């Protein structure tokens, strides 16, 4: 889940560069700037705190409110407050002047984390039904869409459909390690250990090691694969 950095940088400049502003107004807007800086520093509790103050003490245009909520959603997600992440992201999307299809994918991930894969699937299907590719309407679908589609299907127990979704994403982006891992999980559930092993092996060869967690290593170990 990523906030679109150009929007973030623009907002920081807008909120901190208003030289003609009175001091109380500046102080109130400083909470918003602090929220953005806290986000860049990955200080998620501060993101939440300053975001609340930013919204309470200012009358912001809808687009900026949307951004504040988006940052809070990401913060909640990183703090594993999944239902709160969903709520904040929904608010962000409601306020967005031009919803980004990728926001639906981010929200889909949050719904999965919150234990609602059905809603997660609906969000991805909404993008598919409406031709909302990651780069906008009509731009076509690529790994992000199919990856999130596959993850939602996996959580719903539709493992073959999930494997198909990951395979489709890999046709667009053959070097995305996590699609191999996820497809390996789907194959594992299907009892296709040969295919699962092939995917886990590929994953172990191309993944950036610093992102591999203990649970991934444990799964690979079941297949006699180690991430060196």
């Amino acid at each position, binding site marked *: 889940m990523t906030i679109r950095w150009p929007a973030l940088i623009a907002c920081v400049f807008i909120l901190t560069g208003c030289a003609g502003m009175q001091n109380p107004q500046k102080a109130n807007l400083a909470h918003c700037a602090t929220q953005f800086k806290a986000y860049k520093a990955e200080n998620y509790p501060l993101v939440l705190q300053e975001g609340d103050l930013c919204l309470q003490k200012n009358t912001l245009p809808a687009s900026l409110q949307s951004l504040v909520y988006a940052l809070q959603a990401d913060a909640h997600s990183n703090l594993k407050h999944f239902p709160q992440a969903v709520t904040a992201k929904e608010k962000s999307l409601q306020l967005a002047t031009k919803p980004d299809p990728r926001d639906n994918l981010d929200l889909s991930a949050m719904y999965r984390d919150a234990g609602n894969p059905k809603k997660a699937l609906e969000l*991805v*299907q909404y993008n*598919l*039904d*409406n031709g909302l590719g990651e780069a906008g309407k009509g731009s*076509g*679908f690529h790994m992000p869409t*199919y990856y999130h*589609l596959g993850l939602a*299907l996996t959580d719903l127990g*539709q493992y*073959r*459909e999930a*494997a*198909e*979704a990951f*395979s*489709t994403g890999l*046709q*667009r982006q053959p070097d995305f390690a996590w699609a191999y891992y996820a497809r390996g999980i789907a194959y594992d559930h299907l009892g*296709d250990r040969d*295919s699962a092993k092939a995917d886990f092996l590929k994953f172990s060869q191309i993944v950036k090691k610093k992102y591999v967690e203990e649970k991934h290593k444990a799964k690979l170990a079941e297949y006699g694969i180690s991430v060196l």
Partner: protein
Amino acid sequence: MFRSVFSGVALLAVTAACNAAQTQVVTTPEQLLTEFSRCDAHFFESLRDARLPADTLRLSQYGSVKAPTILNPLQEGGTYQRFEKPLIVNGVPMIGYYNQAQTMNDVGNFLFWGFVADGPPQEVAEKLKPLIVDNTRFISEGKAIARAEIRRVGDPIGQWRTQGLTGPGVATPFGFVDRVFMVDKGDETPPLTGHTTVFCSLQGTVTAPLLQVYRPDLNARLFD
């Protein structure tokens, strides 16, 4: 063979899952053709125990199913089996079996498999129509007679949509698979030239997980 570009909102009717049907024991060529017309694994499953006239199809074991023996569907010259004696299906002489798979960059994967028949396409189609599953949708499409459906990646694996189809002539959009049962004039190269083809095809974003279900006679990773 290309399909037309799919456009517009994809709110489509969904067909009943053909895979839900039980595989019947095939004791006649007509029953075999019916199973074949599903364009799924039923044909290959039914060949396991099928009782067919001698000297027609030569079968080989492919994993847990049987299929007409073919050298290599990916290789020109390895895609056809000529029958010693025609297999007569409701009066239509089937003289061989064809099985081809190919990939076209930026367009997708194509699989064609089925029978090569003697007789004009319209006549062959008329004689076979009563045997074809879901034959109300088996209709003329230009010079061919076809029953088409489409599936979007992520749809339940056994479900196909019957609306919003890509018509003949344009590539299947990425993320979709066209499935077609078609009777058509054989193309200009041997062994099909001068004959009529009675084919199933899968075209588009055909992946290994799909092939595992629909083509158990193949190595599902043949396109990887």
